[in-house]
């Protein structure tokens, strides 16, 4: 088998040879020609078969001629300079970066272009006089890099990066280094002449360096502690904020009253390490969006037929479409509003909404709902409800999409910090009371020293570093989680709910089973010939199954939309389609509840091919593993046709529920949660979006990570779904690592407290103990998570 020089796919359907290279389709060859003739063949030297096969339909981007839409999309527009940013999901290798940044060689109208690889975006500066936005998009599509232009591009322009954490970290690091350097002399040299001369200057310099650390870098801790206290929670930021505050006040008091050097070094080090932990935890997958809604998939414009003159077609922004307007939907276009069919035959693919692959046939006068994709001919629709009020959009107004799910979850760190804070405060009070009687001059020192040394820096670092590491390990394996807290919540899950279609079954492959009278070789070949001509998805999949029997070319071919196809072969007639079309009564089709294609030969009913979903590999094993400590439920929007096969896959005590609408799934999860279960939902389509949002953790399974995911807490590559149980184990072990780190940091705290309560806390002791505990926690958690992930590899 030859593989394509451009995209690397096997040349299955056709083989084009051009300049001694093979290509799988005309599109790939065209891209090669374009690049080659522009001296850009270095593209193929950088990486083998880097290309993406282009899929271009000519009239697809007409709406980009609408000035208002262009104006919204452009980031910058002044005379001869226009700047636009696109998201291009097919960016995947260094060749992609190279070719996209050399766009100016393909067209002189492009001035420059810059790729952001992690985000899979490109920012292009061009001259609209030479190349219009539409032609620019067409140019990109022609070389295989089709940009995503959807409704949400229309609403927001490039959002500003939040860089405040980097600034805070920079300030803290800068101050930490300088203060360390200034406080070093006083650690060891006491009563040395020159030191006594300069120490005041040194101290006041340290003081001024510490000001931005406390009031800028550390301000989030004060804010968070204040918020926590106000809502009656002793979160981990309370003892931290107390520690920072006491460190600053005592140090300032010491240098003002000339009692000592203070603890400015420990103070800045503490804030620096804490922020480092925050920074480390903040791993985001910027090319994925976990907050997507329908707007990320809806088109930005549709074709409207103006009401006065039926002939005029115009591209109109989707939000401007009103009730009663007439719109045209072409092949492969998405219907963005609820509407009634005026003209044409609709074959609508609702897989985007429901996860079902079968086409729904609708005739003139029928209603169609937003979110369906038309397959086949052009249809004319009358709008019943505009975008904002359509059935699908209203699903998003459900309150579950507004609430913040991490709220209400008590993290391990916050649970321990409550007891910790109370313990520290009581020790401080007890020790101070003791010293008030024993030696009142030391009481103030001891009180502050206890609060300083007990500042839970190491405890606060344990979770960010463990979870941050795990987040990266998960990401490498193909599970992209929204943030680190998802891992902690994952460890507590006791119920896993799976969607069926598209989640535990594959979307691509299907198998067909034949029932009925035996078909002769000749009949099979005629069948193949008839199916080859049809573009219906069921015909395509049946054709790929029957292909190996060979084909005969039909003499005549007729397609009855919504019913089937009819072909004549030298006097023989083959009919393929619905039961009624082939002369069989409807009753049987309904009774077995399967998707089926019926066959008749010379008006005699032969039998039917019934399609079955193929389950992903390893599902049965996954269910067995999960059922050891979790309750498994399968929710399906389908009918009960697959009940028996599902039962054979699932462990005995699992639940199966059929005919679940999107709202039912959401309600089902809510009921489970009322029964105090912690639920993880694993789903794929928009029909699961409500359930994904309602559950403790919603994981979207996707065969192509870049293409589709509803709002969720994590996106998972479908190929590793069978390993899900391992990731639960990993999450649980992660929590154990955090607990072990807590014990380790308590040992440090107790050692420090021994110094503090006896009134012997020297600045140098604090300066050693604080970084030592932090660094050892970081090393411990990093090593432990690495060892765990090694075990996972197998």
């Amino acid at each position, binding site marked *: 088998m030859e593989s394509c020089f451009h995209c690397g796919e096997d040349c299955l359907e056709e083989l084009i040879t051009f300049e001694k290279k093979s290509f799988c389709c005309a599109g790939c060859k065209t891209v090669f020609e374009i690049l080659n003739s522009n001296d850009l063949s270095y593209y193929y030297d950088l990486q083998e078969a880097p290309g993406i096969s282009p899929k271009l339909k000519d009239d697809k981007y007409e709406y980009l001629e609408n000035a208002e839409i262009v104006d919204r999309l452009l980031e910058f527009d002044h005379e001869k300079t226009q700047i636009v940013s696109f998201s291009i999901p097919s960016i995947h290798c260094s060749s992609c970066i190279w070719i996209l940044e050399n766009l100016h060689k393909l067209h002189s109208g492009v001035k420059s272009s810059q790729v*952001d*690889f*992690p985000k899979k975006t490109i920012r292009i500066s061009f001259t609209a006089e030479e190349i219009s936005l539409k032609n620019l998009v067409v140019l990109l599509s022609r070389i295989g890099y089709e940009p995503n232009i959807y409704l949400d591009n229309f609403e927001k322009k490039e959002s500003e990066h939040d860089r405040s954490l*980097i600034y805070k970290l*920079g300030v803290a690091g800068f101050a930490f*280094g300088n203060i360390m350097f200034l406080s070093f002399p006083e650690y060891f040299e006491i009563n040395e002449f020159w030191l006594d001369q300069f120490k005041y200057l040194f101290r006041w310099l340290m003081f001024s360096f510490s000001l931005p650390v406390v009031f800028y870098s550390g301000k989030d801790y004060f804010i968070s502690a204040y918020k926590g206290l106000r809502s009656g929670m002793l979160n981990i930021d309370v003892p931290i904020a107390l520690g920072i505050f006491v460190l600053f006040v005592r140090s300032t008091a010491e240098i003002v009253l000339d009692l000592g050097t203070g603890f400015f070094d420990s103070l800045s080090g503490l804030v620096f390490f804490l922020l480092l932990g925050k920074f480390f935890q903040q791993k985001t997958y910027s090319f994925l969006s976990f907050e997507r809604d329908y707007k990320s998939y809806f088109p930005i414009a549709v074709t409207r037929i103006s009401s006065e003159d039926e002939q005029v077609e115009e591209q109109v922004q989707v939000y401007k479409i009103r009730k009663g307007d007439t719109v045209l939907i072409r092949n492969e276009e998405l219907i963005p509003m609820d509407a009634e069919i005026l003209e044409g035959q609709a074959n609508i693919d609702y897989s985007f909404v429901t996860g079902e692959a079968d086409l729904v046939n609708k005739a003139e006068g029928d209603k169609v709902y937003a979110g369906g994709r038309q397959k086949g001919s052009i249809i004319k629709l009358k709008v019943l409800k505009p975008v904002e009020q359509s059935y699908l959009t209203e699903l998003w107004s459900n309150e579950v999409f507004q609430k913040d799910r991490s709220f209400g979850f008590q993290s391990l760190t916050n649970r321990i910090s409550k007891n910790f804070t109370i313990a520290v405060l009581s020790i401080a009070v007890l020790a101070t009371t003791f010293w008030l009687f024993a030696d009142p001059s030391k009481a103030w020192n001891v009180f502050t020293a206890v609060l300083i040394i007990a500042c839970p820096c190491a405890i606060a670092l344990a979770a960010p570093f463990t979870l941050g590491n795990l987040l990266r390990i998960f990401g490498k394996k193909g599970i992209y989680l929204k943030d680190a807290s998802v891992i902690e919540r994952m460890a507590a899950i006791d119920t896993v709910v799976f969607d069926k279609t598209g989640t535990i079954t594959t979307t691509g492959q299907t198998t067909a089973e034949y029932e009925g009278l035996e078909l002769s070789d000749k009949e099979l070949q005629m069948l193949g010939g008839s199916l080859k001509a049809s573009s219906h998805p069921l015909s395509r999949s049946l054709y790929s199954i029957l292909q190996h029997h060979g084909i005969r070319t039909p003499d005549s071919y007729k397609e009855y939309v919504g019913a089937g196809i009819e072909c004549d072969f030298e006097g023989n007639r083959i009919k393929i389609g619905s039961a009624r079309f082939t002369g069989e009564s409807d009753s049987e089709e309904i009774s077995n509840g399967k998707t089926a294609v019926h066959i008749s030969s010379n008006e005699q009913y032969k039998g039917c091919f019934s399609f079955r979903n193929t389950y992903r590999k390893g599902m049965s094993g996954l269910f067995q593993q999960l059922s050891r400590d979790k309750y498994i439920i399968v929710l399906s929007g389908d009918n009960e046709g697959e009940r028996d096969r599902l039962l054979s896959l699932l462990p005995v005590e699992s639940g199966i529920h059929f005919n679940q609408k999107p709202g039912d799934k959401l309600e089902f999860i809510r009921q489970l949660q009322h029964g105090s279960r912690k639920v993880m939902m694993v789903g794929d389509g928009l029909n699961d979006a409500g359930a994904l949002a309602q559950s403790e953790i919603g994981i979207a399974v996707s065969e192509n990570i870049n293409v589709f995911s509803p709002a969720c807490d994590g996106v998972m590559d479908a190929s590793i779904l069978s390993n899900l149980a391992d990731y639960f184990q990993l999450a649980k072990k992660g929590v154990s690592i955090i607990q072990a780190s807590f014990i380790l940091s308590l040992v440090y705290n107790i050692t420090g407290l021994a110094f503090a309560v006896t009134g012997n806390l020297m600045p140098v002791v604090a300066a050693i103990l604080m970084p030592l505990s932090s660094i050892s926690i970081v090393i411990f958690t990093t090593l432990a998570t690495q060892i765990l992930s090694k075990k996972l590899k197998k």
Partner: protein
Amino acid sequence: MSIIYMLLAISVVVAIIFFVAFIVSVRKGQYDDVYTPSVRMLFEDELVKSPAKENQPVNKEKFN
């Protein structure tokens, strides 16, 4: 030993210069995408490899 004042001033000034450089680099977006530049820097020189380029020295200058 009053030279210490001078040395101290210099050291603080040098530190602040670097600090300001850091802030400016963050502000310019150098930390927004930390991956693509590492790939991009490997490109340019190899462009000359294309045989067509060697016949067109006019174009070549553009890349050097």
